[in-house]
């Protein structure tokens, strides 16, 4: 992973949730654990955008919540600028929560419908006691709106969320995250609810802000096409583990892990002449439940190249398959 220069360094992070058991399981003393995140390590460098990609249920959102300290991990550590934030509390935790901000997927649900845009943006300022007095805060609010290109700002300050389009709302959410001048932004599917025609516009705006401020972003998404364009580096998750990391170019053009290959081959491309063909997919079935993770390599039941070793031997770990490109598959050379 990224070395000492990383702003965020996650190592062996895991979290599991216990689920309701049947009477028989209780009597037999069986526990049922959902291992949502199952030992992952990664870093996000300063001024870097790391794209964490995977299907629903792979643990990417849980990872984001762990990094945000919204959940307590069962194992592993998260360090931010050299400080272990998994153990931070009180003042330290409050300081961290100011330096790391989150943008949520649903811009409809993450904003109080009774707040005007100016109140939405004032809230983090008052929580973190930023800005002395009304006038200074108003200045900060206007600056943040201008930064996300909601201009002229006077036109937006007094609007309620329902008077904004999805794209405009996500701009307000971005302004709310930026107003405290964070160093790390965690963006969980920030554009997946926005129309394709405006998605790129929002991402371009976010990237511009990121470059201008030197921000680090953990970009969580299921959409490889936007991640490729937006992120500097990608990490692919499957069932609670990172199975491949590398540059967007490596991941998309030279995927090493069979899961990444399947994911990429499933993306529809707007090219003619595919109507009559049934697409051959190098993968079958659906993602198993995180309560019943298969033994050996957890991808083996769906893998077209799995052998006896993949079923029996200990789980493969990330190994280098090229410069800055790693995959967790013991057969990557052969397949």
């Amino acid at each position: 992973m990224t070395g000492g220069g990383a702003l965020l360094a996650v190592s062996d992070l895991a979290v599991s949730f216990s689920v309701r058991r049947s009477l028989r399981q209780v009597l037999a003393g069986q526990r049922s654990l959902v291992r949502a995140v199952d030992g992952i390590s990664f870093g996000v460098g300063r001024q870097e955008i790391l794209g964490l990609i995977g299907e629903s249920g792979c643990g990417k959102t849980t990872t984001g919540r762990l990094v945000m300290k919204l959940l307590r991990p069962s194992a592993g550590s998260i360090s931010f600028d050299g400080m272990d934030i998994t153990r931070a509390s009180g003042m330290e935790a409050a300081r961290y929560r100011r330096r790391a901000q989150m943008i949520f997927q649903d811009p409809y649900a993450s904003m109080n419908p009774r707040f005007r845009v100016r109140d939405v943006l004032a809230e983090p300022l008052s929580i973190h006691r930023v800005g002395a007095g009304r006038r200074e805060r108003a200045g900060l609010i206007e600056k943040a709106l201008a930064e996300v290109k909601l201009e002229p700002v006077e036109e937006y300050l007094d609007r309620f969320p329902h008077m904004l389009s999805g794209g405009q709302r996500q701009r307000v959410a971005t302004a709310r995250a930026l107003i405290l001048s964070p160093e790390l932004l965690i963006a969980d599917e920030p554009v997946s609810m926005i129309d394709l025609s405006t998605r790129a516009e929002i991402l371009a705006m976010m990237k511009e802000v990121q470059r201008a401020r030197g921000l680090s972003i953990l970009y969580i998404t299921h959409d490889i096409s936007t991640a490729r364009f937006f992120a500097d580096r990608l990490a692919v998750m499957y069932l609670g583990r990172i199975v491949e990391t590398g540059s967007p170019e490596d991941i998309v053009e030279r995927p090493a892990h069979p899961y990444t290959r399947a994911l990429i081959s499933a993306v529809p491309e707007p090219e003619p002449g595919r109507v009559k063909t049934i697409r051959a997919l190098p993968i079958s079935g659906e993602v198993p439940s995180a309560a019943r993770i298969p033994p050996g390599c957890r991808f083996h039941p769906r893998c077209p190249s799995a052998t006896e070793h993949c079923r029996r031997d200990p789980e493969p770990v990330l190994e280098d398959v090229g410069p800055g490109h790693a995959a967790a598959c013991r057969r990557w050379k052969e397949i």
Partner: protein
Amino acid sequence: MTVENLSLHYLTRRGAVRAVDDVSFQLTRGETLGLVGESGCGKTSLATALLAMPSPPGRIVSGRILVEGTDILTLPEPALRSRIRWEKISMVFQGAMNSLTPVYTVGRQMRETLQRHRPASRAEAESLIERYVRLVGLPPEVVHRYPHELSGGMKQRVVIAAALFLEPRIVVMDEPTTALDVIVQAQILNTIKELKTALDLSLIFITHDLATEAEVADRILVMYAGRVVETAANEHVFGGEACHPYTAMLLAATPRLHRRASGLAFIPGTPPDLLDPPKGCRFRARCPFAFARCGEEPPLREVSPGHEVACWRFE
């Protein structure tokens, strides 16, 4: 199916929202017609109109929908219910997979739907359901499962099976794969193609995603602000012959995984308010090619066989 001059307005206190405005098209037998456009352009409204069931306060204010020679808009509600909906035309609603009842098994829900339309014994109904469950690629045991025990992809298959078992000729699918992950989406698109051939269906496939449409639609119908702006064969649209600036811009905004672009394109601005649509071409305000003539409304005209465009540049 032939649709002529169909208009659906939502009658609100502030006036009529012209969600579908004078739309005409044909769906030929065995064809998949892809309906695309941004959200709010009238795709879903058009879909509900095709089943003669606009959601309130929507009203079909004009037009004809001919199905096997009958204008279904002239039929009384009971006839629509007993002879048209689900019997001739069925629909997979957007997000339908989340509207399954959580308290009944999948099999029971399907059986109740079936028995409302057909006097079938329980055993007959169950065997028919089993046939369709297998057809959509599910194991027969799913009928004993509750919706929460199924994945999103499986629920979507259940909903598709339920739209098919009364043997409709035409199926309208509104964003059937939008909420699904890419691998599941690709699997379901394969299933839809197989079903279409096996059951000799004609499909209207609605989505905002042109990349998905490229995979399934024989012909594409592009809607903007309640109107049809272009219809063309799949090869024309995706082979670089898309004419209308809106279609071209939608296409440019569709991400391509393997093409390294310096950035993604987008369409600036937002669609117009349909309470008071602008005079002339509705895309004018966002169109980089707009000129004086665009102050008049351009009609949909044929530029080559099977390819129609509503734009003054192609006169």
